[in-house]
């Protein structure tokens, strides 16, 4: 027991500075962040970081921006716990720690040349945005790109300006929906579950990959619709949320049977995990 190769501490965060903070909804903010040492984060679309706030601990947060957008990275953060509450009080110029990036990214090689069907619900748009931005910046790498997004209500939609831009873009076919519109709200968009957006689509199964990210209840319903379109599990990608405490496959909180979501995922091909208990 003398040749074990340990480098610098796994658990030591590096410092980051907040450049801007933007309200996405009443509960979610977007933090634009840069490393204090000037280095790029070095992530790929689909990866996450462990955000570290001294006194509050750590929380796993998906990177919401593409590595093609240099100089900074972005984190979409819902106010859902003590750490994220503390984070929501932070402003431009404040600093916090980050470890990572961690986890398996989207398999860009396998997505290359494919029609992409990018489906997200609620907060799932934040991690998917890293891939959507990548597609915007590398348009020649993919065939047709369709973006479907569902939120609970118009006020719960993330990245409203970008959604509008994607709807207007010739590069994307973009369909948006909300589950319901609270009384008194004025909304002219589509109302209904995100599953209703799939049947009208024309999908070429042998040349399409669907990427699905959303709350746990959304996966089964959306995947069932995709299978009706004869899209096999080897052509469906999911990104799973788990309570990663370490990000490096040690703490055990994110296991799915023999897999560690923080290392083997969070991005999985459906055929890797659909047979595993508790995965979806």
């Amino acid at each position: 027991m003398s040749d074990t190769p340990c480098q610098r501490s796994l658990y030591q965060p590096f410092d980051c500075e907040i450049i801007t903070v933007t309200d996405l909804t009443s509960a979610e903010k977007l933090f634009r962040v840069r490393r204090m040492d000037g280095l790029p984060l070095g992530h790929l679309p689909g990866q996450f970081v462990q955000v570290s706030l001294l006194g509050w601990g750590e929380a796993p947060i998906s990177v919401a921006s593409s590595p093609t957008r240099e100089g900074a990275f972005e984190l979409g953060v819902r106010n859902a716990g003590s750490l994220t509450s503390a984070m929501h009080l932070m402003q431009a110029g404040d600093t916090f720690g980050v470890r990572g990036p961690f986890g398996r990214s989207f398999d860009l090689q396998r997505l290359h040349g494919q029609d992409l069907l990018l489906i997200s619900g609620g907060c799932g748009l934040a991690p998917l945005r890293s891939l959507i931005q990548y597609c915007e910046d590398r348009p020649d790498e993919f065939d047709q790109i369709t973006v479907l997004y569902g939120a609970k209500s118009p006020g719960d939609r993330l990245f409203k300006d970008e959604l509008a831009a994607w709807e207007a873009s010739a590069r994307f076919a973009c369909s948006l929906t909300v589950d319901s519109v609270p009384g008194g709200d004025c909304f002219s968009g589509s109302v209904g579950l995100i599953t209703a957006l799939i049947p009208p689509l024309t999908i070429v199964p042998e040349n399409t990959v669907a990427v699905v990210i959303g709350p746990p209840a959304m996966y089964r319903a959306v995947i069932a619709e995709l299978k009706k379109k004869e899209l096999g599990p080897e052509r469906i990608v999911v990104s799973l949320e788990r309570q990663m405490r370490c990000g490096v496959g040690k703490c055990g909180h994110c296991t799915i049977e023999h897999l560690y979501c923080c290392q083997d995922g969070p991005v999985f091909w459906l055929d890797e995990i659909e047979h595993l208990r508790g995965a979806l």
Partner: protein
Amino acid sequence: MIKLTSDQLDQFITSLAEMWEVRLPILLSDGTRIIGSLKDGPLALLGGAILSKPTAAFFPQHGTVFIATEDGVPESTDSLQPIFILGFTPRDLACLRFIDRFFADGFCDDLYFHQRKSAVVAGISGYCGPYGSLLAPAGGDCDLEFFWEGSSWLVIPYSSAGKALVAEFTDSAPPEAENRYRQAVMTPPDENERFLRRASELLRGNSVPDSFWVEIGDRCIACTGCNLACPTCTCFGVQDWRSAKRVERSRMWDSCQLDGFMREASGHNPLGSEAERSRRRIHHKLAADPEKWGEISCFLCGRCDAVCPTGIGIIAVARELVTRFG
């Protein structure tokens, strides 16, 4: 093979204290045997495995990740005296070998290896089990092994570090003592191994109905004793302890038997019932770890069965699984 009398062993251990932080089985005044220091109690090598988690020597219940002062700059960690630890039974050594692999795989866990990499681990075996029963020799998995042959210790060094520690001694074991060692090596496997392997096959073959886990879950009182005693349980939580001028980030053992173990901020809980959590505890050792690591991660140390107040330690559950489902 070196032979040491008990007095010679005492002298040997005393001689180590200058260079090493010596940890070994001691007897407390209440009759408990723990891994500790001779300052806290007399040596108590005989009696078999220590009930508490032996791998806590390198993966403590509460361990500092780092300490940050007011300006957020982490304080440096002082270098520590290397550990010499004696008292791992052969089954404990198998557990240690397993978690060595676990913590080294992929991202190497520097907190674990901080003291583990410079430690010397000595196993004990021979007729030093409960009531003089035989602990079959480990034959490896440690730096050196102490085999109690009834009246003296046979010392078998394996690693270069182990050989260096006993270099001053000459091979002195008489042929009959070596014969006793060789006979002990031939000890047939524990019958519980058969149950464990068969239970693993049943789980990996999805031959266990959910109703079984509901029954086991109903019997679990979530005391977490199984996880806290298990030498291969490595799950931990991370938390910050705030005081006036500093923050200590630490990690602490966690238990998959607790409702909050996997619960996410969104409220989603993949282990949301006692049944799911009980299944996870057993399935992880007998099915998930064999899938990932190629071996069952229970080495039949018996601690979870010994501490469980409701009789659902892994050996008991494995036996019940095999009895009911083949």
